[in-house]
């Protein structure tokens, strides 16, 4: 959980290694067996020149980050906004799921902590960008 967050603070980043096995497991979990994700031979013939991870898996990673930061303040009023997929995540990528506190607003007994969120590769290239708003009860902050 975040403790006494302030604008400009970095969120506790999460790192993941993406490989074809993990993509395959997500396909089974989600039912999304699009060949672009699970068929390397097919994917090689596309403009992506290889398989890519499912976009919703990245959404799950952003949710993980916000759960780590806000717990029930994510499941009860949290918002994940304007999440865009700006570069494909590929097998072999090590990614960092991260964020920065942008602003904090208090309404009644709750603090609304707005964060810029992103998933980036080791090269620094951003793959996913968005915003999240998590909640704290006033006595928790």
């Amino acid at each position: 959980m975040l403790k006494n967050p302030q604008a400009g603070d970095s969120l506790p980043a999460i790192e993941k290694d993406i490989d074809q096995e993990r993509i395959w497991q997500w396909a089974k979990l989600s039912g999304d067996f699009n060949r672009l994700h699970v068929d390397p031979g097919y994917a090689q013939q596309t403009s992506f020149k290889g398989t890519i991870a499912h976009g919703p898996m990245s959404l799950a990673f952003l949710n993980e980050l916000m759960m780590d930061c806000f717990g029930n303040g994510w499941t009860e009023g949290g918002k994940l906004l304007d999440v865009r997929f700006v570069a494909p995540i590929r097998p072999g990528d090590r990614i960092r799921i991260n964020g920065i506190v942008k602003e904090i607003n208090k309404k009644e007994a709750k603090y609304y902590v707005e964060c810029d969120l992103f998933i980036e590769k080791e090269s620094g290239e951003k793959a996913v960008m968005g915003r999240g708003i998590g909640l704290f009860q006033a006595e928790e902050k």
Partner: protein
Amino acid sequence: MNFSSPRETEIGDKGTRVVNNQEKKPELVFTDLPLGRTFRPLEYAVTKDLVQEFMEVVGDRHPLYWDKTLAKPSLIAPPGLAAIYARLSYLQDHSMPSGGVLAKQEFEFHNPVLIGDILQVKAQVCESYLDEKGRRRVTFLIEAQSQEGQAVSTIRLYAIWPK
């Protein structure tokens, strides 16, 4: 339909993974997606096994999913499951044509999902148009609620449709 984790795969010759049954459903094409279209509600069972599998695949092992001493009054499900049931909500009777792009997505969480809940997930087309470049733009509004009718999540999924 009670849909949790699909298991429609097998290992084919030379270890190649083969997907069964995935292409038997008709493709959901742009002309099937006029503004206002609704889909039959998806019943999505949030079982302990599903949550366990999600934790393993994603690596999200928040203690509220498994530690009963912390999770009061009961264990909750990872909110990231919404990324899965959102997509399934409009693909129960269709397959997704190849080449689509998930352009943007938004989630709003209202109440936690408890392990054992059976969600009812409803999808509606709230935008369907050709943009200035002739791309087929479709936006779904997806709302999930618990078996008691309590709102769980609202999702907006913005896609560029392939055909």
